[in-house]
């Protein structure tokens, strides 16, 4: 069990999903809760490995201190060998834990399934839900690019049906839009998958003396899908970064970076390709919105760090200015759009675009503080935005509409719920002491730090800081319109949040405070080691390239 802990956690939800197809209808949701609950409990066991933030890696301190590694051949043969290779390091562990946590709460949030407007096919719903969870967990643990891609795409179909069948009025449109945008991003990733394999084969043939594996210490002789090998192998990094390495007459590193970036940028999402998000988030049922905002968006950021910047740091340098512009536009445009919304859920959706802009900004300046801020922002947003979506869902269940201007004074009729709502929205606002603040502060700090070697950094930081003001603007305004003021006649009879609803809101609220008060102990300690190694690795590659250019 202990050896295969990660595999158990990843596939347990799917197994539960298969089991629930054969149980009576009234037991279905309990089986689902058991599956996602057990996955969460088991994932808590992982804490003991990561506690203290300095646990020695299985592969020494070569890179990322991988833990709970499982390797087995999957598709093997004389031309390529694809592995089932999973493991956790500081980059994936916090997101992995976040996934099991948010999934458990979303499963709990689905418990009023029978009172939904569309309540057919409860088995199908929970089966797809659990399959989705397996896909998400798989993405975070895969360290083989091929496996990563398979898990990445496995999520598509369940999500499509969850939005398309159980969503709101324009569900069909929103679902297909989500599907097509995501697939559009991943088809170029597929070309990147092929290219990285064959170019890494060229690399180890070209510089055999550098091609020492981080894993076995032996010389690598074939192409590889191993993400860590692609990141750390000197021969591969040298060949990928070489200005003479070209694909279709374009320099390899910037081109590959872009191929991968597009896929992750759509998932994140960044501004020109964000349009699927408001549709999908608004049309999806509440628990699915929680998953979308809490976990799916993080895959974009995770992909940036693990693949784009890990393997092609020179590509990141090449595109830095462009990405900073996109990030700042996402922050400001997302905030302005959020301010203009009259639909409560759409406001929360656009606030995600704005918040994810900080993630991209923190990453694209390529400083340690920026990376830390981006990672923290992802975790913080993974807690505050599911909370906000659930808060919206709670009043939608009662009022059956989401028009901000029709509400008012809800705090008076639902005091417990109102307190939770204020907590959640203030966390999203970035109030010091709550989780949203730390990430944004670190990102802005990291951006300023990049100033000396990146001429747009100050401008970007100042513009992004202005985004904080806009965020405060739309959140305070919405809190005022919905929760404050005198209570309206038609909402006076609203029942207080139920026990189940509080059971979902309370842990999220507690984490909002915990992460805000103890950011180091709750998040940074787990990931700093890996992020430092990543930064060192990137600096090494950059210096190698500069030396090559100078010599």
């Amino acid at each position, binding site marked *: 069990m202990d050896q295969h802990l990660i595999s158990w956690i990843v596939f347990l939800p799917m197994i539960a999903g298969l089991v629930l197809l054969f149980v009576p209808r009234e037991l279905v949701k309990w089986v689902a809760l058991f599956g996602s609950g057990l996955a969460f409990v088991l994932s808590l066991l992982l804490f003991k490995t990561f506690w203290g933030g300095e646990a020695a890696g299985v592969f020494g301190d070569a890179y990322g201190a991988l833990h709970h590694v499982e390797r087995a051949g999957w*598709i093997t043969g*004389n*031309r390529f060998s694809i592995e089932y290779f999973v493991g956790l390091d500081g980059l994936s562990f916090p997101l992995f834990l976040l996934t099991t946590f948010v999934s458990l709460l979303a499963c709990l949030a689905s418990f009023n399934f029978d009172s939904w407007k569309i309540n057919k096919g409860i088995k199908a719903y929970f089966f797809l839900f659990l399959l989705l969870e397996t896909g998400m967990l798989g993405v975070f643990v895969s360290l083989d690019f091929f496996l990563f891609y*398979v898990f990445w795409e496995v999520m598509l179909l369940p999500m499509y049906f969850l939005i398309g*069948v159980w969503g709101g009025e324009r569900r069909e449109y929103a*679902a297909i839009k989500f*599907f*097509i945008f995501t*697939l559009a991003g991943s088809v170029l990733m597929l*070309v990147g998958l092929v290219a990285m394999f064959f170019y890494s084969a060229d690399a180890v043939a070209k510089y055999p003396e550098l091609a020492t594996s981080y894993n076995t210490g032996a010389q690598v002789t074939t192409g590889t899908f191993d993400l860590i090998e692609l990141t750390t192998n000197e021969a591969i990094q040298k060949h990928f970064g070489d200005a003479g390495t070209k694909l279709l007459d374009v320099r390899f590193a910037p081109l590959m970076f872009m191929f991968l970036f597009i896929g992750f940028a759509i998932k994140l999402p960044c501004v020109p390709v964000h349009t699927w998000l408001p549709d999908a988030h608004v049309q999806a049922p509440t628990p699915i919105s929680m998953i979308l905002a809490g976990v799916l968006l993080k895959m974009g950021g995770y992909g940036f760090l693990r693949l784009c910047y890990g393997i092609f740091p020179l590509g990141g340098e090449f595109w830095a200015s462009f990405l900073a512009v996109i990030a700042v536009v996402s922050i400001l445009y997302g905030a302005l759009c959020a301010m203009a919304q009259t639909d409560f859920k759409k406001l929360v959706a656009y606030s995600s675009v704005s918040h994810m802009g900080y993630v991209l900004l923190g990453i694209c300046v390529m400083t340690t503080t920026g990376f830390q801020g981006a990672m923290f922002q992802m975790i913080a947003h993974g807690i505050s935005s599911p909370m906000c979506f659930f808060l919206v869902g709670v009043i939608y269940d009662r009022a059956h509409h989401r028009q901000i201007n029709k509400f008012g004074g809800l705090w008076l009729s639902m005091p417990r719920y109102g307190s939770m709502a204020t907590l959640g929205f203030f966390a999203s606002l970035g109030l010091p002491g709550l989780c949203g603040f730390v990430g944004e502060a670190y990102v802005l700090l990291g951006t300023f730090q990049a100033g000396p070697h990146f001429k747009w950094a100050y401008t970007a930081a100042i513009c992004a800081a202005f985004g904080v003001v806009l965020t405060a603007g739309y959140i305070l305004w919405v809190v005022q319109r919905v929760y404050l003021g005198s209570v309206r006649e038609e909402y006076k009879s609203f029942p207080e949040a139920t026990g189940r609803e509080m059971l979902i809101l309370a842990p999220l609220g507690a984490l909002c405070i915990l992460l805000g008060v103890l950011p180091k102990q709750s998040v940074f300690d787990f990931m700093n080691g890996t992020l430092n190694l990543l930064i060192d690795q990137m600096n090494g590659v950059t210096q190698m390239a500069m030396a090559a250019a100078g010599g």
Partner: protein
Amino acid sequence: MTELIAEIPAWFPKASEFLTFSPELAWVATLCLIMLAPLAIGRDARITAGLAIVGIAVTAFFTFKVMGIVSAEGPQTGLTPDRTGGMLIADNLSLFFKLFLLTFLVGVSILWMSVSANQEDDAPEFFVLMVGSALGMSLMVSTQNILMMIIAIEFASLPSYAIVGFNKQKRIAAEASLKYMIFGSVSAAVMLYGASLIYGFFGTLDVAQIALNAGPVLEAGGANRLLVGLGMFCLFVGIAFKISAVPFHFWCPDAFQGAKTEVTAWLSVASKAAGLLLLMRLAHVFCMYAGAEVLHGVAIVIAIFATITCTVGNLSAYKQTSTKRMLAYSSIAHAGYMMAAAAILVDANKVESFSAISAVLAYVVVYMLMNLGAFGVVALLESKNGGDDSITAFAGLGWKTPVLAIPMLFCLVSLVGIPPFAGFITKWYLLAALGETGVGLYWALAIVIVINTLISLWYYMRVIVQMFLRESDKPATDVPMSGALLVNVCGVLLIVLLIFSNPLKNRSDKYSAGLFAASPTALAGEGAKDSLAQSSPQAGGTESLENNHGG
């Protein structure tokens, strides 16, 4: 008696050759048996189908026997005194294709039994035509002689024209059959014209010898180059017609719509696979003997056809309202993907690069499962609702009759080529084969293919949307057991082949690697290439003519 034996001409096959070609003989015997049985035991659909399946089993038995011979002694050629002639070849590729066709025949027979057996009076004729066209297709893949190739194509086509029009009461079937036949006849005429030009120049119809001598003629330029080029192009047109490559595809949607659905399933896979593997074999022989400059030109022509074929196929499929027409265009697009592999094969010009053939072998196997499943569902649905094959006929199927909708979903998503279905893995092999060449042209082709994947999502999703996202007040369809079993097996196999894809890959590697041993050079030893060179037209056209046809 001894005098009689002495008079057996030299061209008459020897006993060992009879054994080598026992599958074909068993196949012919099956044909005769199906035709004659009704005279003795009456026209019963089930008995006929049973006879056909017994015949198929016997043929398969002999095929396995020959496989044993081939793996012990290497590939065999026969039915010609010149051992290098390759009039008929028994090697891994042709044997693989025989088994493929036999398996597929069993699948189509099961489908026919559960859909049409009850209303069909002409079962013997149907099976004769079906098994006959299968024999023709198997011969197509067993030759590298242009004359045999033309005969085999006609052998495969003539029964196909008849079974397309087998729905005798329907106008649309008659029209489809006529259209198919007119296109087929014209392309046969064009092909014969091309063959006569080629023969006029080279004095031989053996592709290996033609390839050897093509270089000088094409390099010399002038009218000769034009005429030889025209001749080769005319031959390509004939094959392109079988593959239904754009712009020789116009028969395909009409024929597929007019024919009975099980016939459509048969033609959409078997006829295309035969055409493609014939193209692969010729391309492979050609690449072993012709010079690099000639090959690059041929490769570019094939690459352009592949690009146009998949793009036009996908774009045309989007507008269709009939599922069968839509799947017809989808099959055109898939033929385009597979043609890309033929282009690599020509250009790579090295014996080791069998990845392309291996990719196509794996592709056709999975493609057979996908199409058999998808057309199977259409056939089963159509047989219960009065022949309505429009996409809207699928409305609500996912909730009413999941036993049909789930396999349909698997097959369609697999046709798009995304995980977790085997269609993804075979598309990956294809892209990997393209990437392995490291040539810009093929990277561009890979990008064309992935973008086409995205386009194809649109129209496959239209059926999925109808099945799961739309409502219908139609009652559930009751499905015959055997048919339901067939389509579900296809659907499940698609997942199984992704998770355990090693056997598929290793086998297709093995069979395609064997192909390279089957070349005349390998058969006749080192000197074959020299002896081929000597019998070139420059050395004396009449002499080589006698070499091939005298004896």
